């Protein structure tokens, strides 16, 4: 951008190449960051939702999320979030064996957790509908 258009050939080419790479990387970071931010706001609700299907231990919940297309690979771990849910009294826990394996810590919804899930889902739907109203009809032509 700061270079004169009539600069030397190799230098201009290198400059352009760097600019393109920087733009692509910046886009990747922004997109990845947005997904992380979006998930951060609702992952606790997703965990409460999969717990609502029945008690589960940590990895089991990850698998339930993945089965619905929500992979945490590249995102934060669910363990700190489970810790926070436990601390806030939104889940009940107990230890039990799992298919002959070592005892695992099972998480299930507490009454407080059920209420939090209900209000959180209502909030999510309201937000999603509002955002859809804004973004749902957007069509953008991108020229390279």
């Amino acid at each position, binding site marked *: 951008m700061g270079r004169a258009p009539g600069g030397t050939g190799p230098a201009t080419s290198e400059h352009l190449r760097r600019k393109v790479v920087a733009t692509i990387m910046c886009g990747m970071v922004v997109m990845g960051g947005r997904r992380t931010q979006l998930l951060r706001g609702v992952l606790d609700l997703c965990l409460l939702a999969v717990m609502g299907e029945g008690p589960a*231990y940590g*990895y089991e919940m*990850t698998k339930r999320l993945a089965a619905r297309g929500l992979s945490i*690979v590249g995102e*934060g771990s669910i363990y*700190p*979030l489970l*810790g926070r849910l436990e601390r806030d009294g939104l889940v009940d826990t107990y230890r039990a064996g799992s298919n002959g394996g070592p005892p*695992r*810590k099972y998480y299930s919804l507490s009454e407080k957790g059920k209420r939090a899930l209900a209000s959180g889902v209502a909030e999510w739907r309201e937000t999603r509908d509002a955002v859809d109203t804004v973004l749902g009809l957007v069509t953008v032509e991108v020229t390279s």
Partner: protein
Amino acid sequence: MSRFVDACRKEWNRLGVPEPVANEMAADLAADLAEAEAEGAAPENVLGNGVFDARSFAASWATARGVVPREHRTGMQRRWRAAMAVASGAVSFVAGVVGLAILGHGQQGSMAAVAFSKPTRVPLLGPRSVPINPQLPGRLLLFHGGAVAALGVILLGVGLVGLGFTLWLWKPWTTWRRRGGFDESVGLPSYL
């Protein structure tokens, strides 16, 4: 992945997480990782991007659970607390010993003196103030009889109160994080 679990355990130990809690977290983590490995899944499936930084992962998990003692929030706070405890302990010890010595000798009718570089008054104890040297501004406070005993009692009291303060500073169990006080300083935002 046992190295990952070991690194987490080391971090929990450093943060002062109680051993039973650390053992429980380590066992859960090891079991989940073993199950993922048996199913051919990558550790990232269990840990997300936490797999790249065991220490941050361990710290954020323990912090979110509320099992990190408050004084472990930052190294600076920990060092400040330790320095305060040492200083308080030393002052308390000296005050207590001097107080005991004064009380021991005060009963035999001795006299205590405190020199000040500037003219001063200590009306509560009723000492007699005399100039150190007529040419100089300094004064000497002389404590007799009951005043000496009072001084000893005060110093002994200061020593005992200081000792209590030192124990409070040193005592880790007074600083357990309470529910609702989420500590943002240890947990890294990338781990939710």
